[in-house]
């Protein structure tokens, strides 16, 4: 049996759960293991219930698991809410002074009582170090190399005082030593050091931010909204080192218009928000479409409608993104399935936006963009920057009668940037003629619509097809999009009797793929995080295929591999 670590820590917001979880994950990473972390928190700053879950293994891990092996309960609420998630033989770590654990007879769980608060008090005269004590104890159970934990503490608290770092190391050590090497309490995995290529742990937000930096994004603008807020933090942190301007605007309408204004001057610009903010941006989204101004926008879905479940995940905005804004115009919607795809999609988004002069939505969700996971180190090697057709001064000098929206066979008209002589033009939200002047002429309107729409012909050839995973010969097919790929691939690791079709580029829709690849709708199931089976609707609309089965979820929680395996049995 393969060794797996499934560890979870829970407590109140303000306890340091998030940073402790990350330190656990980084310790695994530095042992050469792969990790996937999943966090839950309510929309509250103090007092809410927070959890951090780490799934680690020696080979690729794609998602969190329902069943955990070790539960660190820093408060009673964690016991109440999560005790039953422990698998048989699992361990609960707690402080008997603070938390009561009544193990029913039929619950085969080992309990590890540690005077966490007391240890913390000895070190810093308060219970501030309790999470670090529990972290030390957890890693002792897995027989981790303590030196690696020390290196993680030093790095994570780099910006803190030497005193705080010292106290944390001491707390971790005392927690570690509280689990005796001959303790009867045992876990199945041993966190042994293995040789593997260097890796990083990043969330989707960070992956997209890194992709944006690599693509040469020089202007980032946003208004804070979970779960996209951390991308604003990432970009702001890197503002000076990467020579970009980061702006927090007054609202999302300003945000998108600033991104458009910046792009008009020729800067690679980006903005991000969640569904609510994107709703506010809708009118201006169409401005990018009609004026053919490149736009890169990340929409990080959370559970709607309206304020919905602000800190939870969902895939309810697929059809919204595809149909956003009034009128008809071409846009690209790409929904990366993991952090590696998120990085690549961000880089491509900038290239595609400029090459085809249109808006690109990177459609993500809380699950992808707030879940840290390990991946190979992102590299800029092989990254191509394609700025599309921008006329430089010497080219403009040769053009007597510049037409910004010239009718061309590809539908793409070379653009000019402010400052260049002879390239003056109007980028117009009214429909316009080849120069950009407003017109209501029937013939021009029809040709202009056709010109913009025509870009799809080359675009569709360039976009990557959906990917097939798993047992390619299997008749059972699971179809999913965006972040649902992660738990689906995790399920596949345990049960290879189905194949998976993952859609990343959803608009324009890859119709050809569905004509080339035989999919038996009776033996297929769509798995997605919404109530109305939006991908199912889309596939039927675009291809006529009516996929018979669905597994849907709209409670704010991601899918778990366990429930996917169960569902596939129904096929």
């Amino acid at each position, binding site marked *: 049996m393969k060794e797996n670590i499934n560890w979870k820590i829970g407590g109140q917001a303000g306890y340091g759960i998030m940073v402790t979880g990350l330190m656990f994950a980084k310790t695994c990473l530095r042992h050469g293991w792969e990790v996937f972390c999943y966090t839950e928190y309510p929309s509250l700053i103090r007092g809410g219930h927070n959890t951090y879950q780490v799934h680690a293994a020696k080979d690729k891990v794609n998602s969190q698991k329902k069943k955990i092996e070790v539960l660190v309960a820093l408060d009673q609420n964690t016991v109440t809410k999560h005790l039953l998630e422990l698998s048989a033989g699992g361990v609960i770590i707690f402080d008997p002074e603070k938390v009561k654990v009544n193990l029913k007879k039929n619950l085969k769980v080992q309990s590890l009582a540690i005077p966490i608060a007391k240890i913390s008090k000895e070190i810093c005269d308060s219970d501030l170090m309790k999470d670090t004590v529990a972290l030390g104890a957890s890693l002792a159970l897995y027989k981790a190399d303590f030196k690696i934990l020390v290196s993680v503490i030093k790095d994570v608290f780099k910006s803190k005082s030497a005193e705080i770092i010292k106290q944390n190391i001491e707390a971790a050590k005392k927690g570690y030593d509280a689990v005796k090497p001959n303790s009867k309490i045992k876990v199945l995995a041993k966190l042994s050091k293995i040789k593997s290529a260097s890796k990083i742990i990043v969330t989707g937000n960070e992956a997209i931010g890194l992709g944006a930096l690599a693509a040469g994004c020089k202007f980032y603008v946003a208004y804070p909204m979970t779960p996209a807020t951390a991308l604003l933090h990432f970009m702001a942190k*890197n503002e000076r080192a990467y020579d970009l301007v980061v702006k927090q605007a*007054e609202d999302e*309408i300003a945000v998108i218009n600033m991104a458009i*204004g910046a792009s008009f001057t020729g800067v690679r610009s980006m903005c991000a928000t969640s569904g609510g903010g994107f709703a506010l941006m809708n009118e201006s989204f169409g401005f990018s479409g009609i004026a053919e101004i490149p736009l890169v926008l990340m929409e990080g879905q959370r559970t709607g409608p309206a304020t919905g479940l602000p800190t939870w995940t969902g895939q309810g905005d697929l059809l919204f993104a595809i149909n956003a804004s009034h009128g008809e115009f071409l846009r690209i919607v790409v929904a990366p399935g993991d952090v590696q795809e998120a990085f690549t999609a961000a880089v491509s988004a900038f290239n595609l936006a400029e090459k085809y002069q249109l808006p690109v939505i990177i459609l993500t969700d809380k699950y992808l963009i707030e879940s840290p996971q390990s991946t190979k180190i992102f590299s*800029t090697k092989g990254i191509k920057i394609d700025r599309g057709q921008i006329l430089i001064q010497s080219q403009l000098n040769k053009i007597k009668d510049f037409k910004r929206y010239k009718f061309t066979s590809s539908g793409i008209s070379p653009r000019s940037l402010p400052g260049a002589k002879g390239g003056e033009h*109007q980028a117009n*939200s009214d429909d316009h003629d080849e120069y*950009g002047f407003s017109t209501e002429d029937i013939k021009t309107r029809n040709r202009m619509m056709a010109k913009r729409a025509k870009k799809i012909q080359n675009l569709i050839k360039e976009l990557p097809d959906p990917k097939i995973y798993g047992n390619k010969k299997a008749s059972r097919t699971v179809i999913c999009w965006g972040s649902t790929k992660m738990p689906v691939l995790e399920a596949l690791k345990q049960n290879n009797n189905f194949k998976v079709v993952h859609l990343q580029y959803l608009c324009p829709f890859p119709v050809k793929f569905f004509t080339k690849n035989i999919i038996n709708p009776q033996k297929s199931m769509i798995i997605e995080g919404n109530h109305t089976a939006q991908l199912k609707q889309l596939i039927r609309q675009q291809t006529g295929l009516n996929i018979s089965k669905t597994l849907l979820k709209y409670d704010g929680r991601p899918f778990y591999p366990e429930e996917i395996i169960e569902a596939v049995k129904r096929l």
Partner: protein
Amino acid sequence: MPENLNIKSYETPVKPSWCPGCGNHAIWVALRQALVKMKIKPWEVAFTFGIGCNSNGANFIKGYILHALHGRPLPCAEAIRWTNHKLKAVIAIGGDGDSFGIGLSHFIHACRRNVDVLYLTHDNQIYGLTTGQTSPTSVKGFKSKSTPFGNIEEPINPLALALSNGASFVARGFAGETEHLTSLIINGIKHRGFALIDVFQPCITFNHLNTFAWFRERVYKLEETNYQPTNKKLAWQKSLELGHKIPLGLFYQERKATYFDELPQLKKEALVEKSLKNINLNKALEEYQ
């Protein structure tokens, strides 16, 4: 063309479609006169427009023009300025609906940001393009198609609003005083920071109250008095003078750091000039290992 830069250099093949006698014509003349006097060439300036009669002007002027949505010329203009501070001028143009109705919050934020943008608001105290409804600057009691029994709301005071939110150049012009307006525009472009020029622009078709004659009876130029535009309190008092005497001219000007001055990233080159070659991710990746 630069050798004989003149007002025609700023024309396009499209002739203005404004009503004969509309105040917009005079603003269009003043704007071009100012640019010519400053020897700014059409390709060195970016204009952003909203939607309204005034913003149809996007078709009548040459330059790099972003003809945005109703209410949104300012955020577009701010970003143009941040990303290319080397342009000789960035000028945002909107109506009173654009500026003080649907786009009001952008206006307040632009004031406090002190971005180097000139905002020319064509203030006709009515919604022109939508055929004559009450606007946020229409006076109390004003009758229009949307308030046939009289407007029961107080009007917005654009100058007072700008002053209270940190705008560093606050002025008022009048479409009936083209030369005066031209010199205000020149000073507004020269000003380093956010400059508001609210322009009384009589709408001869729909606003039968605030006509050219109505304004001529009331307006006077601050420059012709001993008023000094350096004291915010005095400027504030002047901005409230809206009775039978209404001041025109520069109410307030202050030299303070612009958005650009505060950003070390922009010291060497404009954002748009930054090289996208050889970007190295190592530094950003450090903390994720």
